[in-house]
């Protein structure tokens, strides 16, 4: 399989990239590690005329901002995030999630920004269409869906591992273009539309990622369910954060985010509300799991049935919550 032809530009800073993107208008695309973009280009799913590579651009190190936020560059490789002790101390959930992405090779090349900005996935979509599924589906500009033929929209699933963790950490992202900069909560980055998962316009990029510090007792856990346990996207993933009162037993606030069940990560808000103010116990956790199952309906994807995904969701949420709770005690 060969890459389509394109013009290659090198950029040394996010600012320069923003400039270039607006100069080339919709024909250009930013490439960070390229681990997600290049396979899509080989499949003919992305055909930028200009590729703006940031591979050699300098990357600022993680730091704690004046307001106590952990500030990360989107250009950090996943390996760098994984290896950063500052990240491990301030956002262990992120370290854990990053360590489960793809494989060592992918983490060496892939970046935080690229991970957040990856496309939704679908077996009918992530292949070239030279002789299979030639007729375009919704996501490729057509008007059918192969996966859920009765559906009127695209059901492709967002499968990135890092976004769910950032949801549960209540992270924010800086979005920049040549003329404008704004900071939005991570949840605002995703539209919830399989066909076009991100709110970013072609001129916009992620400039920075902010993770608020926790002020108090916290336990967190990331649970990724996959068959092969490596070199594989999640069948589903759960990122759980339990912030506790000083007694170490009462939950002050909880965030449970589920990945790979829809076009964007999904917060289990009823389940979260259900535990808040309660003692963490077998019963309250089981109740939370029950509530989460009521509010989240996994989209069947990658050959898995919804029955199986629901059962797995139950097991994984329960697992993530128990581990998170166990970690509070350890602190």
């Amino acid at each position, binding site marked *: *399989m060969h890459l389509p032809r394109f013009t290659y530009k090198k950029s040394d800073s996010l600012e320069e990239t923003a400039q270039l993107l607006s100069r080339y208008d919709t024909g250009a695309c930013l490439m960070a590690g390229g681990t997600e973009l290049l396979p899509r280009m080989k499949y003919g799913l992305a055909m930028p005329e200009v590729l703006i590579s940031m591979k050699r651009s300098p990357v600022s190190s993680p730091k704690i901002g004046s307001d106590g936020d952990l500030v990360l560059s989107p250009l950090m490789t996943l390996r760098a995030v994984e290896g950063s002790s500052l990240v491990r101390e301030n956002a262990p959930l992120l370290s854990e999630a990053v360590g489960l992405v793809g494989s060592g090779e992918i983490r060496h090349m892939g970046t935080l920004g690229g991970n957040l900005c990856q496309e939704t996935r679908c077996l009918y979509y992530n292949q070239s269409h030279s*002789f299979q599924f*030639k007729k375009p589906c919704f996501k490729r500009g057509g008007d059918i869906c192969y996966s859920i033929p009765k559906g009127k929209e695209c059901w492709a699933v967002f499968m990135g591992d890092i976004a769910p963790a950032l949801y549960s950490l209540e992270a924010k992202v800086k979005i920049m273009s040549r003329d404008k900069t704004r900071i939005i909560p991570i949840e605002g980055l995703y539209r919830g539309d399989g066909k076009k998962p991100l709110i970013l316009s072609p001129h916009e990029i992620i400039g920075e990622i902010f993770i608020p510090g926790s002020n108090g007792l916290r336990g967190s856990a990331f649970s990724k369910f996959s*068959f092969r346990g490596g070199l594989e996207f999640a069948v589903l993933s759960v990122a759980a954060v339990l912030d506790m009162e000083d007694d170490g037993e009462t939950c002050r606030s909880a965030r449970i985010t589920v990945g790979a069940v829809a076009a964007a990560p999904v917060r289990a808000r009823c389940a979260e509300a259900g535990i808040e103010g309660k003692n963490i116990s077998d019963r309250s956790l089981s109740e939370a799991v029950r509530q989460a199952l009521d509010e989240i309906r996994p989209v069947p994807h990658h*050959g898995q049935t919804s029955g199986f995904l629901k059962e797995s969701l139950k097991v994984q949420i329960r697992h993530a919550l128990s581990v998170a709770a166990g970690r509070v005690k350890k602190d």
Partner: protein
Amino acid sequence: MSELDYVGKRILRKDGPDKITGRAKYTMDMRLPGMLVGRILRSPCPHARILNIDTSRAEKLPGVKAVITANDTLGIKHAFVETPRYPPDQYALAANRVRYVGEEVAAVAAIDPYVAEEALHLIQVDYEEMPAVFDPIEAMRQDAPEIHPTHPKVKEPFKNIGGKTYSGWGDVETGFAQSDYMREDRFESHLRTHGYLETQVALASFEPAGKLNIWTSSQGPFIKREKLARTLGLPLSAVRVQMAYVGGAFGGKVDLYAHEFCAALLSMKAGLPVKIAATREEVFAAYRHGQPLIVEIKTGVKKDGTLLAQQIRVINNCGAYRGTGVVVIFLAWGFVMLPYRLPNLKYEGYAVYTNNPPRTAQRGHGAPQLRFALDSQLDMIAEELGMDPVEIRLKNARQPGEQLPNGDNVHNCGLVECIERAAEHTGFREKHLQNRSVGTTLDPLRRGIGIAVSSYHSGSLIYPNSSSAVVKMNDDGTLTLMTGAMDIGQGAETILSQIVAEEVQVPVDKIEVIAADTETTPVDIGSWISGNTYVTGNAAREAASVVRKKLLDLAAEELEASPEDLVLDNMRVYVAGSPGRALKYRDLFTASIRKRRGDPIIGEGHWRTMQDVPFHPSLATTKGRWSENYAFDAQVAEVEVNTETGMVRLVRAVTAHDCGFPINPLLVEGQIDGQISMALGHAFLEEVIMKDGRTLNPSWLDYHMPCIHNMAVSESIDVITETYDVGRSYRTKEVGEGLVSAILAAIANAIFNAIGVRLYSTPFTPEKILRGLGRIK
């Protein structure tokens, strides 16, 4: 066994250094001056008439050097099996009709891949879609669309029957009547690919004088030459097929493929070399995988577990053309006949055409599917009878010297010992009882243990029926072995060198191997049907003994001794007891030229399995002899089942195998570990997911081949039943295919032992486990 120097030793692979240093050149790496890139246009329809193909725009594209469609071919059909009953059923390029998504319709050769790709887009094909069918049971129904007419010899009112095997012995009705217990079960297996790392690739160069040179990643050049010559209308001698290193095959590279034919024809048309390499996606979505079988078994036994009768129906979803579909339904009968004694059998196998890509051989060629079904059911019977799984197997296992219903003999079969030693080594009986009693603990992890057996033939009669080899001495006393055999990573060249080394006493690293070239090396059975070590090995041994004899005769003369008193040792000959007065081989070489009318000491040898049987057995009735050499094994699996997630882990696999004797224990262990890892993928992870003839996961990312961290501990026990003696033919057995089979049923049986859930289909997914446990409704 006499003292051996090379055979039986843990000698490192000859191809090892090249491969681990990256120096090995595969067909994929080959380039020739002026070489063009070929690409293939494939059908997007599962079943359609081709109304018109317009290539004019593609031909006009600058950089395009040749475009071919069926119109450029002689219209000669080919197939893996070509017999009067099963005439060839496939064109190298589709003519008038396509029968599966991915079928080859046209091909182009261009100066680079971009132009080639663009040219494909410019070819306009008008299709008229026809109704298609993908499920074999539906395809057999009278109202199903017809893919090919049902074979005229099939009497039942079924449609789309590409082939049928009908066999049996004794009288099953009597057997069932005498049975104390009977049961009927249905098992299904799924579609897997081989996973060879080098995708399919061929480089063809047609010389103006009329010679076609082709390098292709295959399992043996002779079958390719035969089919290429015939479909291209060239004399056999005008086609030369050669090899480079092969990046894996596992059964997937035996048949003639369209890319080989197209590379050749494009080169003939363009007058330049043409290379066609399949993408991984093409391999997944358009090439041939293994064969998913439906196996229905009715079995009757006595109270004590003795098998009395089996009625078996195998339905093979063989895809749009026969491929090896009719071979599998024949072999399936053999996998029933082999490991257990069975007085009465009624067997029916159907190869059913569907609008899926055709299928081919895959390591074990039906044995894993059959053994999964048969050994699962045997455990279910044992459970009903309150018998131990080991006992019921020992009760029915074939004994040495038993004659098989088809006239073959199992000779020195070591099956009983395999079962006993595997069970003993793993503490099977105690664990099996203990696991069952765990029942109600809260721990979600449960342990289980299971056992199963299998048997595989080592070389059978099929074209080309024989192997021969030439061993020639070089001036310096080293040797060159010329063999048609192909090292596809299994170590053929190392094994053959060890045998030659032992016979002539020349160290393995002083033996150069020239292999698998239809022009310069003698014919060989090829690296499939598991005959390499036995058939080619004996041919090489014979060739080497001729050299040995010539050396001894000459040395006897020179040393004035009798040949019996001479010792060959590390390229020297001396009289026993006087190593000080030795003659070097290089001096004997010179002496031979001088004294033997210029004879440079060349030996030729040949071998054929079942030398006295003229024909291969009937695919239709199984009549006739099949093999004279069967390997046996018992495998034990220990698993850990997570009852919450449904995930199963193979913790330990123990293989007790009767391979005769290991010529190279290191390579035997490598084959065992490789087969365990392949079976592990088969059992848990790998599945080519298809919907309506199209492949949903055509990539390594979405097709889950196991990673190194998924591997299980694999242990092996050699059950030695043969010896190797210099100067005598041997009957050592295969280790390359049979050991991928029993472990599947062993895993299924271990899962049952752990959680009481019986699985009737592969793969053993978490969803099936959770459904079995009642967690998913």
